[in-house]
């Protein structure tokens, strides 16, 4: 089943609407406007949103309503963003998280 994502759009419920361009881990892609970041990634076939800080286990969304914190992504430089609660925006930069989030804005430029 490799190559298959978890969710796909169904014609009976798909709405016409605009699209926005985002970057997921440096890969440019076009997604439907109005979707949450988590839903957009699932439609793109994402099967891993992050790896846990504790064991490195892969995780993907469980609840889609902001209570499981499994969909955490770095969105526009902000680590640990709940991607199911944030809508896609044109030009958005998204990074999957591998282990503990780095405190980007605090450590950038201060490394020796």
């Amino acid at each position: 089943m490799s190559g298959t994502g978890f969710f796909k759009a169904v014609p009976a419920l798909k709405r016409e609407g605009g699209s926005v361009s985002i970057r997921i881990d440096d890969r440019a892609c076009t997604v439907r406007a109005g979707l949450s970041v988590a839903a957009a990634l699932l439609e793109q076939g994402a099967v891993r949103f992050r790896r846990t800080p504790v064991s490195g286990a892969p995780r993907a969304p469980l609840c889609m309503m902001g209570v499981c914190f499994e969909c955490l992504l770095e969105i526009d430089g902000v680590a640990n963003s709940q991607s199911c609660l944030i809508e896609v925006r044109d030009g958005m930069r998204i990074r999957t998280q591998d282990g503990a989030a780095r405190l980007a804005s605090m450590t950038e430029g201060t490394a020796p």
Partner: protein
Amino acid sequence: MTDRPDVLIVGAGPAGMQAALRCRALGLSVALLDEQGGPGGQIFRHIEHADQRARKVFGDDYAAGHALARDFLGSGTTYLRHARVWEVAPGPLVYALVGGHSRVFEPRRVILATGAMERPAPAPGWTLPGVIGAGAAQILMKSSGLVPEGPFVLAGSGPLLYLLAQQLLRVGARPAALVDTTSPGNRMRAVGPLAGALGSWRVLLKGLGMLGDIRRAGIPVYAGATHLAFEGDGRVTGVAFRHRGRPHALPANVVLTHQGVVPDTQLTRALRVPHAWSDSQLCWLPATSALGELSSAQGIFLAGDAAGIAGAQAARLRGEVCAWAVGEQLGVVDPRRRARETDALLRRLERWRALRKFLDTLYRPADGQRIPDDDVLVCRCEEISAGTIRGFVREGCLGPNQAKAFGRCGMGPCQGRQCGLAMAEIIADERGVEVGQVDVLRARFPVKPVMLQDLIV
């Protein structure tokens, strides 16, 4: 005005919207803060944009939310979308991030209508990508038009599982199987409460309709399954279980799980309100007056499923009850009129309570689906197993709050939302005491992730 409204409501589900409507009708200024991009809560998710097709797929109960949302949007309520409430303090004071900006509100009264969430049900492999809540799948369907890809299985118990199967079938997405973990013994126990629920015969007929659709579609149903486990390496590839004494394994690209819903108590637990264990709903319920005012935080009310699961229609009635009580406290309704109105509403609520008693009995999650074996992860964030928690108890741990100190259980990003209930049941079981005798897992503000700069307001 926005920052000092008469009433601040948290949550734009049925309870919050109905409370807003009544408060506005009583002439009160209202601000409503909600985390989502549109009104409706989870039950009426995306209702603002639901077209005829969507309303047909999701049914009349969903479509009914359209008029409520329309009335709410036209009510003159200051409705703040994408608002993340991270603290509610006595006073009352409400702290929130609204569109990325920190705001402090000083309302005269607060109504919390934070709703419900799916019961986290730890089982082997439940952290694998591709194991997703049935409610989550329904949210993806309603808000994004997405359905599971490849062979998928519904596994668990509760009305939402059957409703989702029916809705998926309507758009041509056919589950490979329904693995139903409802204990066969529940049916006998539910016979008594059924008599009281007959007043809600329309709802009961709808339930029979769902089961009929599943049967007619020829979906294999494994009723009374036990030992549910999700299998795979890096992502789910199948589901295993026992049925009629025999082991089964089904391949699956996605597994949609469900074990009922429970109140979202993050705010009330952080407020240190007393919570009592409900043995019928198997969850913690915050202590409130009959009209919904928190017993230890005056001026803060609780409406809807956050105060105990009763369903969307009951949530509307409870939102209305809170609004009348607030109106009386703020001097815009005289006590006699308030009593007349709330007495009538509380009588109407009895019917929904009777239905809920039946549903709670029939779909009581099996013990094995709530109190897992030693090797199952309970705290998903800190990756702590049931066995480790039992080890804490043997070392003297008395409850969930001590389990934090013993090994960080409940201290990850979700702040115990996923492990809190299971942790309490596991500890009580290991200690051999009632769940009510172990304390409720305390939550701490901020209850939403905020940046340090957002705390400085």
